């Protein structure tokens, strides 16, 4: 107890030096721990999303781009696949196809045009409001609601695709009719609309007398369209009947199609149908693609581990030197203690108590940090995975 008392008194008196040593040691312990926790959680989250998506249909090209766009709503823009592919899967009777249209965004969050099957497939529940039922409705993920501070009854406007495209379509204002419960997945960061709504945003479908001008917004009154000052289009009860689509729906685009086969046999038959490299479409297993990505990440991680180890050794050596110099500075105190009759090993006990106290404080800080990371890992990993989407 006396050794601990003296150690604590010393550390407290030299608090700045103790603080630096404690924080540096805590960091050396914390960084690898936190990295390990985040990487493990990332691996689990990535693989879980991949495992939960049996098959993915899309245009032939990068399988990773297709997977990232369809599962994580990332910035990748795979070549669109025509809706006739969805019909083909339906007609095969082997699986349920769920189109995913991820070309647009709003407020930094991806707008995902899909069908109601998607909500059942991902087991998404509403924390408020209702599901999609009318053209133009939007259901937002929990993180979207939190970040934008919006909820049921508010509206969101799709971002213009290209500010310099003077001939482009007007952004669409959509009422928020529902908010999803958090799932710690990319769905939290998505704005879900019916795929037809996505086509409206794309300009494939449109209504008439449906534009809103800046003056109208300012005056709070309806006005006839004036393209020179158009802000966005809005689907209302009055104009919804005027919305229509030009062309055949079979040719309308979707970014990808999630294919949920009825059984293993159905999956095998379906995969066989897309083996032909001349087929402009491909059917892939996202789990395999994600596993490849994770393997690549972990190969990089092993390199990071080496770098971390080298830095940790260097930092520990620096701490060791600092402690050694600190002990050298205390040679006079040690000599005094010996003269006053300090028992054998007292000096070692005293220095050990100081080192133990420092390491304990460092370990405590590192453990608290690791616990915070572990507690929030799923949220943070979800956010990290959604970065850039």
């Amino acid at each position, binding site marked *: 107890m*006396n*050794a601990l*008392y*003296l150690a604590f*008194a*010393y550390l*407290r*008196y*030299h608090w700045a030096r103790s603080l630096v040593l404690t924080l540096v040691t805590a960091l050396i312990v914390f960084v690898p721990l936190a990295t390990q926790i985040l990487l493990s959680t990332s691996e689990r989250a990535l693989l879980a999303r991949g495992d939960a998506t049996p098959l993915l249909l899309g245009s032939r090209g990068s399988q990773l781009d297709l997977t990232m766009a369809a599962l994580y709503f990332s910035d990748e823009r795979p070549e669109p696949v025509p809706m006739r592919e969805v019909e083909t899967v339906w007609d095969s009777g082997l699986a349920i196809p769920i189109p995913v249209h991820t070309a647009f965004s709003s407020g930094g969050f991806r707008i995902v045009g899909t069908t109601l099957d998607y909500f059942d497939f991902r087991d998404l529940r509403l924390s408020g409001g209702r599901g999609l039922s009318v053209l133009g409705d939007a259901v937002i993920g929990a993180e979207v609601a939190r970040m934008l501070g919006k909820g049921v009854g508010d509206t969101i406007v799709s971002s213009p695709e290209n500010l310099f495209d003077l001939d482009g379509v007007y952004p669409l204002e959509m009422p928020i009719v529902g908010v999803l419960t958090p799932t710690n997945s990319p769905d939290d960061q998505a704005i879900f609309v019916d795929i037809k709504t996505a086509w409206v945003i794309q300009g494939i479908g449109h209504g008439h007398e449906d534009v809103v001008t800046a003056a109208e917004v300012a005056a709070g009154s309806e006005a006839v369209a004036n393209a020179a000052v158009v802000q966005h289009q809005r689907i209302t009860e009055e104009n919804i009947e005027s919305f229509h689509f030009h062309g055949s729906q079979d040719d309308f685009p979707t970014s990808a199609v999630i294919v949920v086969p009825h059984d293993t046999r159905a999956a095998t038959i379906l995969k066989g149908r897309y083996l032909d490299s001349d087929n402009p479409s491909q059917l892939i297993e996202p789990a395999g693609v994600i596993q490849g990505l994770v393997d690549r990440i972990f190969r990089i991680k092993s390199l990071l581990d080496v770098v971390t180890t080298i830095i940790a050794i260097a930092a520990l050596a620096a701490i060791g030197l600092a402690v050694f110099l600190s002990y050298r500075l205390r040679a*006079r*105190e040690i*000599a*005094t*203690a*010996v*003269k*006053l*009759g*300090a*028992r*054998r090993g*007292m000096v070692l006990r*005293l220095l050990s108590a100081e080192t133990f106290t420092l390491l304990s404080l460092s370990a405590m800080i590192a453990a608290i940090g690791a616990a915070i990371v572990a507690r929030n890992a799923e949220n943070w990993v979800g956010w990290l995975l959604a970065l850039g989407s």
Partner: protein
Amino acid sequence: MVRIENLTFRYGGTGFRLHVPELALQDKERVAIVGPSGSGKTTLLNLIAGILTPATGKIDVARTDVAGLPDAARRRFRASTIGFVFQDFALLDYLPARQNILYPYRITPALTLDAAARDRAEALAASCGIADKLDRHPTALSQGEQQRVAICRALVTQPKLILSDEATGNLDPDSKARILDLLFEQASEAGAAVLAVTHDHELLPRFERVLDFTQFREAAA
């Protein structure tokens, strides 16, 4: 209190040799040791305290053969029987004055830090005039105040012998006499003998006996 017979000591490789045929210090006696630097005055204090062990000869302190004790017993004996006062005070900067006084109790199991020890520390501090400065760290004390703390530390364990190594060497002339008188006064109250190394000849009249150490230093072979 102290009886030395036919003591010899040498530092390996330096040629330093010390020979003390006979030296005695009575209970409660106040003896000064004078002599040129390097004559072995501090070495003698360390031999009496059991920090160094002699090559030959006998050192009895409070009727205990110090040199004959094993190391652990010698440390315990030193902690409980001898009080040290140093020229540089040797206070710990990270402890307030009160804890500096009680420091011996923190470093050895030979002493028990109890309420009596704490009361003794307070009483010593009061009699040395630093009762209101017990919560200050050494850096916030004057040199005279620091030496008073050091004296309290030497006496708080109720030792039978005070070894003083140039205790007044770092003090101004006015403080020297006051501090030495204080040391004698406190040692007298505690019933302790004082063996003090000093270079300050003005202070010698205050001692009961003065020992010139030059006679004990042997020329190198």
